[in-house]
């Protein structure tokens, strides 16, 4: 406030009259309260705060201060008790109210201490304790299931029993079993649970093979980690209940994932080989059955009239064949027939050409 006044006045000095140089010897801007011999700027006095003591008589605020000081000095209002006693009583009443009445939610338990010593656990509802600092209540949420997820981000590589590496992501759910143990037994319960989880998971995975950890053995790993953790935390007396361990993802490390994908590709391929073979097998057997059935039918006919059937089949077949091929019959026994094979070949080739070349 005073600074502003000083500035205002100094500015005024500079503006109105430059007597005594730019930093006004008479302006007295530094102390701000002095009137000095410098020229007054027109709005300087108007800016004065009510608190600023004017040269003339005391202002009402001053008077009030004086009066109240006098009142405290004598300390006795009309009924004979000082005001501060009421103040103190009110303060104490509020203090006691706030530190000795506790509302415990349905999820919570209150750990009560008397003189620092554990004296009981408060159940949900309204509870009373000694006021602070004699008594104390710490509320803890015992129903809420907390979840720790490991790892936060990135890969979490773990060595398996067969000296392979696996990338595991899992979560641990827990809640407070015994609030007083949780509060008094371990320095950092939350980080302890996390460390115990990591160490248990690694100890368990170190005893199974990579294939188990990737697939079939996962639920067993979860169970064993859960038991392991519970045993350890009970040994510490942590007052924590492990509700469950869940492996969210188990995969080979990024660097070797391609090789693992190749294995499943090979499995698919093997399946497709087998599928092809099965299709062939069905075809073959069906064909054999069909042919056998056809033969049996014909054979039944044949047995009824062997000679005629045989002839008929012979002629029918020959007819079908000879009607579709060029046939040459060589007569005249005793004459050596000239078999014009080249001629036959030429004729065969010419036939399609003629068909293409001439309209005839």
């Amino acid at each position, binding site marked *: 406030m005073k600074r502003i006044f000083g500035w205002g006045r100094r500015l005024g000095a500079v503006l109105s009259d430059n007597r005594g140089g730019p930093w006004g010897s008479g302006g007295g801007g530094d102390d701000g309260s002095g009137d000095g011999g410098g020229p007054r700027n027109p709005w300087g006095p108007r800016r004065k705060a009510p608190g600023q003591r004017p040269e003339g008589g005391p202002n009402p605020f001053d008077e009030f201060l004086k009066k109240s000081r006098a009142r405290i000095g004598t300390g006795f209002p009309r009924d004979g008790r000082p005001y501060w006693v009421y103040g103190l009583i009110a303060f104490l009443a509020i203090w006691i109210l706030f530190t000795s009445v506790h509302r415990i939610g349905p999820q919570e338990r209150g750990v009560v201490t008397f003189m620092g010593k554990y004296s009981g656990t408060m159940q949900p509802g309204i509870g009373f304790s000694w006021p602070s*600092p004699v008594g104390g209540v710490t509320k803890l949420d015992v129903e809420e299931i907390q979840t720790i997820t490991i790892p936060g981000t990135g890969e979490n590589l773990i060595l398996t029993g067969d000296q392979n590496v696996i990338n595991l992501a899992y979560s641990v759910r827990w809640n407070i079993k015994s609030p007083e143990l949780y509060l008094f037994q371990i320095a950092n319960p939350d980080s302890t649970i996390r460390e115990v989880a990591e160490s248990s998971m690694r100890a368990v995975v170190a005893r199974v093979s990579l294939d188990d950890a990737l697939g079939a053995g996962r639920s067993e790993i979860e169970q064993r980690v859960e038991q392991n953790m519970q045993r350890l935390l009970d040994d510490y007396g942590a007052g924590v209940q492990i509700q469950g361990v869940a492996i969210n993802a188990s995969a080979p490390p990024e660097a070797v994932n391609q090789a693992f994908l190749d294995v499943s590709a090979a499995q698919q391929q*093997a399946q497709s080989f087998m599928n092809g073979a099965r299709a062939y097998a069905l075809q073959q057997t069906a064909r054999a059955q069909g042919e056998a059935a056809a033969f049996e039918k014909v054979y039944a006919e044949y047995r009824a009239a062997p000679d005629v059937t045989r002839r008929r089949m012979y002629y029918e077949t020959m007819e079908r*064949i000879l009607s579709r091929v060029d046939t040459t019959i060589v007569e005249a026994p005793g004459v050596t027939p000239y078999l014009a094979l080249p001629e036959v070949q030429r004729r065969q080739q010419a036939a399609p050409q003629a068909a293409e070349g001439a309209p005839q």
Partner: protein
Amino acid sequence: MTRTLRHPIALGVIAILLLILVASTFSIVPETKQGVIVRFGEAQRILNKYRPGEEFGRTGAGLAVRIPFLEQVVWIDKRIQSVEMENQQVLSTDQLRLQVDAFARYRIVDPLRMYISARTEENVSNQLKPILGSALRNELGRRPFAALLSPERGQMMDNIQNALNRVARQYGAEIVDVRIKRADLPDGTPLDSAYERMRTARQQEAGSIRAQGQKQAQIIRAEADAEAAATYAGAFNQDPEFYDFYRSMQSYEASFISPGTAQNPRGRTSIILSPSNDYLRQFRGNR
């Protein structure tokens, strides 16, 4: 006297002095702390000392009295605390390197001893840290890498805990538990070679799966062929002579008739028959 009592500032001063006196005479010992009462730097007695198997509510916690101004209380945590060993490389007997993280949990069970030998809790943890590291290196250095991934691990941890406990006792601490948090192959060559091994193992597996698939496929085909042959034999064996005729008819038909084109429906096959051919028996006019 009454005048001074009535004077508010004097009253305030007296109240403050009284508070200081009360605060330096009584102290509330919480469940989580132990206290060493020290008179001129010399430990006098212990408040709320840890006893194994004690129940909360029956501990030494509560109100404690001391001679004001002459005696001070040094507070020491009563809870189980953790000391962590940072990532360290450990060499196993088979010259494999491992990157190991470990932690130990301890509790100060003898506050007096701890106060005399280490003064502060921080010192205890600073003293234990390197010892945990060396105990771990010693123990792991005596075993092959594979032992770390086996049930033997529990035994190793017990050994480390015992070694650490011997030292911890000098500081009034007791080791509750030692665990290896992580044991990893170090980045670089060891990890890469492990990856390479995993990769080749998988390639081998993929190859064998493919070969197995092919083998199965072949077996399936062969079985089908055998079954078909059995079916054929069962039918045709009724009359081998007729089968010969029947099949030859089919065969002639299949092999002599080549598919003709639209222009030349007769195909490209030429057949030259001798008049003595059985087909032409009637053509010859013989009876």
